């Protein structure tokens, strides 16, 4: 018996120890209950509350956003940056975390002063704006963004309610002569907050500069970071191309500075000036004053400042038109520079009487003298010799009354009374000959005069030299000759006639530049209004090129309503001479005549 008991014990000892069954069952029961609970919870979340929760999740974690491309940069011909980019933050308030109006009030009362806003206005904006994530400030300065970050840090309860969204912002770093307005502002235009170019080059080349926006459709965590587990769908943005202009910022600055100085000195309302390379048509400088700061375009109240008068406005050219009249007549062989006639003070054509500006009877007068004195009667004589049809053919060939095709936004064609136009009268032919009855864009006039300056070839004006993508030139604008308008000999005669006028003390004498032969013509036009002219005020201008032979630039300056003198002779031509001198020095053009010894400073 004892042996049996021992054997049983030995057998029991030899058996492996087994966990008591009830404990295992208890564990299994616990896990089963726990598992069932989990399964029920999952069922509740995934099935019963699927609609609500997925909608909330969609709202909170789904991230659909537009990826803005980097806008292309704009450089001048020397590589100086004229338009660049920076990043500023948009500030959003997420109303999801606000339980009621009281919560919103509490947030707004604390937060609005950080942005310099009134709490009441911000609250109204947040209440009325659709959606949950509301934009409350656009492109804030870095200092304000820092304040927002600090606010979130110090008010942890709002850290998920206030978000900063970095966005690109266009910047124009070069400043004009007053240190406030942007250099070449009306030429460049500006890009708005939606990356859309407005006015000028920004508008004309918007498709190239803007690039192509991309998008992202992803899920993000509570910090706004895209989740890696869910494959994000996205289309990367394509950055815009960079532009290199023909504009020289040095010449642009000199031009703007002289323009501002002249407007102040001659008490003009406004003015514009342009410098063109007559041998290529490239625009070297283009300025109008007063101007604006394109970095603060939204604060500009006078939208006329945005316009570029060289392409957007038309104006009667005044006597500067006589350059084209004489060039046409001489080219056609109708007159020569030495052709003389008896110049009365006035002449009557088709019952209209035209007089010269000073009502002076000059007597026997050559064409050179007539041009130098800016005699309207002499211009009418030259046009008469040429003939109406030929004259308008020449104007057409010079590109007057037609768009030049310059690569700038909003170019208009101008208004010329052609023989085929409704209401045309032969009187228009004579008045056009000395600069009335026709309204041209300044760029038309400059391009036409450049054709005379370079020996007779009309070039298409252009301002963008290269388009670059990732540092590679993808498009290049080269000088484009439109046509030969006048013979080189005729152009040379005009250059000599004009420089003779400058150097012999005639009307454009103040435009003289010591050491250089320059060819300049002044102009004074009455200010037109609907159905006639204003009683007072004038548009005083000076047009010409330097040096007279082998011209390096064509320069046009126009002053609106100068008060010290209404004549271009005493205002614009003075500015022309000063600016031409600086430009010749800047371009390192050697003088061809002896320069008077400078007077030593006392």
């Amino acid at each position, binding site marked *: 018996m004892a042996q049996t008991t021992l054997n049983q014990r030995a057998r029991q000892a030899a058996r492996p120890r087994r966990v008591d*069954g009830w404990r295992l069952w208890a564990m299994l029961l616990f896990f089963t209950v726990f598992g069932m609970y989990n399964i029920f919870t999952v069922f509740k979340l995934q099935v019963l509350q699927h609609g609500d929760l997925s909608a909330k999740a969609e709202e909170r974690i789904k991230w659909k956003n537009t990826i803005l491309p980097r806008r292309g940069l704009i450089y001048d011909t020397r590589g*100086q940056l004229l338009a660049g980019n920076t990043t500023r933050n948009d500030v959003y308030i997420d109303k999801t975390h606000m339980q009621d109006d009281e919560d919103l009030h509490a947030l707004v009362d604390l937060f609005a002063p950080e942005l310099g806003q009134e709490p009441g206005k911000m609250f109204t904006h947040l209440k009325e704006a659709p959606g949950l994530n509301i934009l409350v400030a656009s492109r804030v300065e870095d200092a304000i963004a820092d304040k927002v970050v600090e606010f979130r840090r110090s008010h942890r309860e709002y850290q998920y309610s206030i978000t900063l969204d970095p966005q690109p912002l266009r910047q124009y770093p070069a400043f004009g002569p007053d240190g406030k307005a942007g250099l070449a502002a009306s030429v460049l235009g500006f890009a708005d907050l939606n990356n859309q170019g407005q006015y000028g080059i920004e508008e004309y080349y918007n498709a190239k500069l803007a690039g192509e926006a991309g998008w992202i459709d992803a899920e993000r965590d509570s910090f706004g970071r895209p989740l*890696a*587990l869910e494959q994000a769908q996205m289309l990367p943005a394509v950055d815009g191309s960079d532009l290199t202009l023909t504009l020289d910022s040095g010449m642009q600055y000199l031009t703007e500075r002289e323009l501002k100085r002249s407007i102040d000195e001659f008490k003009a309302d406004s003015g514009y000036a342009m410098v063109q390379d007559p041998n290529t048509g490239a625009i070297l400088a283009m300025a109008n004053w007063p101007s604006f700061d394109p970095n603060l375009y939204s604060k500009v109240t006078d939208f006329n400042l945005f316009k570029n008068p060289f392409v957007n406005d038309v104006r009667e050219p005044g006597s500067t038109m006589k350059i084209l009249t004489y060039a046409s007549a001489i080219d056609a062989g109708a007159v020569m520079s030495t052709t003389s006639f008896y110049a009365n003070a006035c002449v009557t054509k088709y019952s209209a009487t035209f007089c010269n500006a000073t009502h002076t009877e000059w007597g026997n007068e050559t064409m050179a003298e007539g041009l130098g004195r800016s005699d309207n009667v002499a211009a009418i004589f030259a046009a008469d010799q040429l003939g109406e049809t030929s004259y308008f053919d020449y104007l057409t060939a010079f590109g007057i009354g037609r768009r030049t095709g310059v690569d700038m936004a909003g170019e208009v064609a101008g208004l010329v009374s052609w023989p085929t136009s409704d209401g045309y009268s032969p009187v228009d032919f004579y008045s056009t000959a000395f600069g009335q009855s026709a309204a041209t864009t300044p760029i038309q006039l400059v391009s036409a005069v450049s054709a005379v300056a370079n020996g007779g070839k009309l070039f298409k004006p252009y301002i963008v030299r290269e388009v670059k993508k990732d540092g590679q030139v993808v498009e290049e604008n080269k000088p484009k000759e439109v046509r030969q308008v006048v013979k080189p000999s005729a152009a040379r005669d005009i250059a000599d006639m004009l420089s003779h006028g400058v150097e012999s003390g005639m009307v454009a004498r103040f435009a003289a530049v010591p050491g250089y032969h320059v060819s300049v013509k002044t102009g004074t036009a009455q200010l037109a209004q609907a159905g006639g002219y204003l009683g007072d005020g004038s548009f005083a201008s000076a047009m010409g090129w330097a040096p007279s032979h082998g011209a390096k630039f064509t320069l046009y300056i126009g002053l609106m309503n100068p008060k010290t003198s209404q004549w271009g002779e005493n205002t614009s031509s003075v500015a022309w001479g000063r600016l031409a001198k600086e430009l010749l*020095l800047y371009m390192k053009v050697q003088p061809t005549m002896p320069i008077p010894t400078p007077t030593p400073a006392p």
Partner: protein
Amino acid sequence: MTNRRRNHAQAAVITRRSKGSARASLSSLRLLPGSVASAAGQQVTSIKPTLLKYVDLHPAMAVLTAVAIIALVCVIYLSQVTAVTNANYKLQSLESTHVDLQRAHDDLQLQIGRAQSQSVIEAKARDKLKMVPLDNKYSYLPIASGPLTSLPPGPTPGLPTPVAGP
């Protein structure tokens, strides 16, 4: 009796039982063709002892073990997910750094642009360097064309004439 032998013994009993029950099930599967039913029965009888040959688990323990294995797989999966997520955050951080550097680059370009602005240069020239406008206070030096060797020898203008030593 070793565990393995005991398992063999149990397996033998189970085999006998299952043979009996297999016969019973075969008799209940009269609708099936005889060959198929017998094949199924053979499979079951041949597998079952083999499976249980090395396993001696309480059923509850078996379930718990299975749960533990599943939990382990879940943990491994979660650790993988966490690793991927961390890698993603690292990538995000690098992208953020890249964006910051790009921004700094853009800002530097603008700073250079502002510094090169002629109005800034002019103001510094006037205020700091006390420079004045050139006006008429300049003249061009006439230089004869041709190589320098063709110029007549002479003292360099503006330099003192060398004096012979004592």
